């Protein structure tokens, strides 16, 4: 009984999604081996070896695996699969790309995007964009699973490093070739697609303060910036920042509303956010009533403290 965890990495570093998927993999109750499929990926393998609960790291290092194209990566997973009862990957764009291909080759029906391990063969997963939760039991002898990172805590680094074992790779003709990539790491994400949105209201008082207080916080969180209509109307923020009925409708993982009261048309544009934080001096403000977490006080004191707490 062993579980294989296909890591998400960029050869040099290990994505945090892997540490979260590791927590899910460990809940299956078996030893977990982490597979690093990459090129010059020793640093990623070493990072994986440090994670608590990793029994072994398999390093498949070959130029053909450089960009983790689905064809060679899935072939590698399939080649290793016979020794494993479960194959897990984080539901990142890479995991979602590779794992179903491997599952089909193994004649296994994959369980996508699990948010809970009920039993080693039973899982909860969101369907209908999270409007319903499905509990499924797999009848396949081998399980192939992708994991929604946000639902599991990240595994911490352990005290001892797990051994790293090299796996031989036989490159084969795949029909696909990497051409280029453009990663927008530093740019602020687009409002409707962002995982985190930091939104400001009229309490910011001026466009200077809006920029000075909100933007650095947003950049630190890799968040998009939004604004209430009142702030846009007052000229503190440009039109395309407006969140709400007449502006953009957003549903990020985390919505931080700073100094905005939460007029009904604003709430209509963000109420489906997963976690809502209100930072407001008025504890009766409508935004506070719907927030998961609220911090009452002056935003000009709170934001610097928040900045410090984020490190």
């Amino acid at each position: 009984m062993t579980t294989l965890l296909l890591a998400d990495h960029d050869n040099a570093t290990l994505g945090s999604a892997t540490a979260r998927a590791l927590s899910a993999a460990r809940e299956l109750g078996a030893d977990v081996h982490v597979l690093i499929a990459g090129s010059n990926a020793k640093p990623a393998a070493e990072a994986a070896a440090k994670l608590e609960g990793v029994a072994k790291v398999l390093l498949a290092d070959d130029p053909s695996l450089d960009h983790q194209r689905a064809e060679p990566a899935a072939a590698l997973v399939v080649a290793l699969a016979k020794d494993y009862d479960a194959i897990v990957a984080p539901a990142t764009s890479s995991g979602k790309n590779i794992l179903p291909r491997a599952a089909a080759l193994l004649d296994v029906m994959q369980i996508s995007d699990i948010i809970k391990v009920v039993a080693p063969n039973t899982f909860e997963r969101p369907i209908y964009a999270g409007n319903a939760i499905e509990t499924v039991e797999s009848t396949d002898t081998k399980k192939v699973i992708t994991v929604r990172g946000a639902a599991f805590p990240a595994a911490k680094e352990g005290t001892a490093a797990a051994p790293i074992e090299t796996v031989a790779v036989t490159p084969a003709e795949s029909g696909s070739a990497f051409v280029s990539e453009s990663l927008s790491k530093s740019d602020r994400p687009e409002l409707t697609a962002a995982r985190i949105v930091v939104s400001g209201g009229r309490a910011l008082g001026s466009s200077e303060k809006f920029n000075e207080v909100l933007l650095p916080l947003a950049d630190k969180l890799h968040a998009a910036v939004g604004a209430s209509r009142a702030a846009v109307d007052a000229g503190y923020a440009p039109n395309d920042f407006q969140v709400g009925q007449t502006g953009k409708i957003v549903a990020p993982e985390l919505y931080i509303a700073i100094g905005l009261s939460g007029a009904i048309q604003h709430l209509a544009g963000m109420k489906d956010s997963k976690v809502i934080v209100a930072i407001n001096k008025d504890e009766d403000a409508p935004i506070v009533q719907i927030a998961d977490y609220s911090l009452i006080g002056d935003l000009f004191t709170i934001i610097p403290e928040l900045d410090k707490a984020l490190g």
Partner: protein
Amino acid sequence: MKVLVPIKQVIDANVRPRVKADGTGVDLANVKLSINPFCEIAVEEAIRLKEKGKASEIVVVSIGPAKAQEIIRSAYALGADRGLFVETEERVEPLAVAKVLQAIIAAEQPGLVILGKQAIDDDSNQTGQMLAGLLGWPQATFASKLEVDGDRATVTREVDGGLETLALTLPAIVTTDLRLNNPRYPTLPNIMKAKKKAIDVKKPEDFGIDITPRLKVLKVSEPPARKPGIKVASAEELVKDLKAAGVL
């Protein structure tokens, strides 16, 4: 080149799904059903390829209950040439769908298969990748740009943190992301023509494929309700809570 576009009927994107009280699933009675938005993008992309002279024929395929045939007509109204419908009242999982498609592709021999990246009902995000695996074809998922030149396709993919461009040798599988295109509206004359166009109807048995589900759905439930909010005393406490909630 023939382009094959597998499509699925799902609950309309504008309808808020309601979980049935007995926990057996989502209530689909009297609910508007439509072509899955990602599938519609796939049909649109195929039509654009045809308009550019890169594709000669667009064949749409769907698998599902009898009433799902409607979406073949929706695809006809957009501009698909021919439709194949595999009728079954059973729940069909992505793996089974991929197997049926594999059999259809063996007969149809398309040069390119374009699918939606996922269906907005089960959110599996598997069928295209599985089909590529079964066929041994190259794949490019989550496409935001597709160019076809001879027997090569250049595909820009939306990946975490940016874009990646791949070159594929055809035949290949491409799955669509939201930004690939904006599907056109069907024209009234095409809607009327689509109503009269024939659909080739088959059964899974015709392909000798066992579609028995591998996953047992034990229960479908409402997502946990929003918990009453809590007041935190300080910025440190807020950060700690947000980290614990997994959003930071």
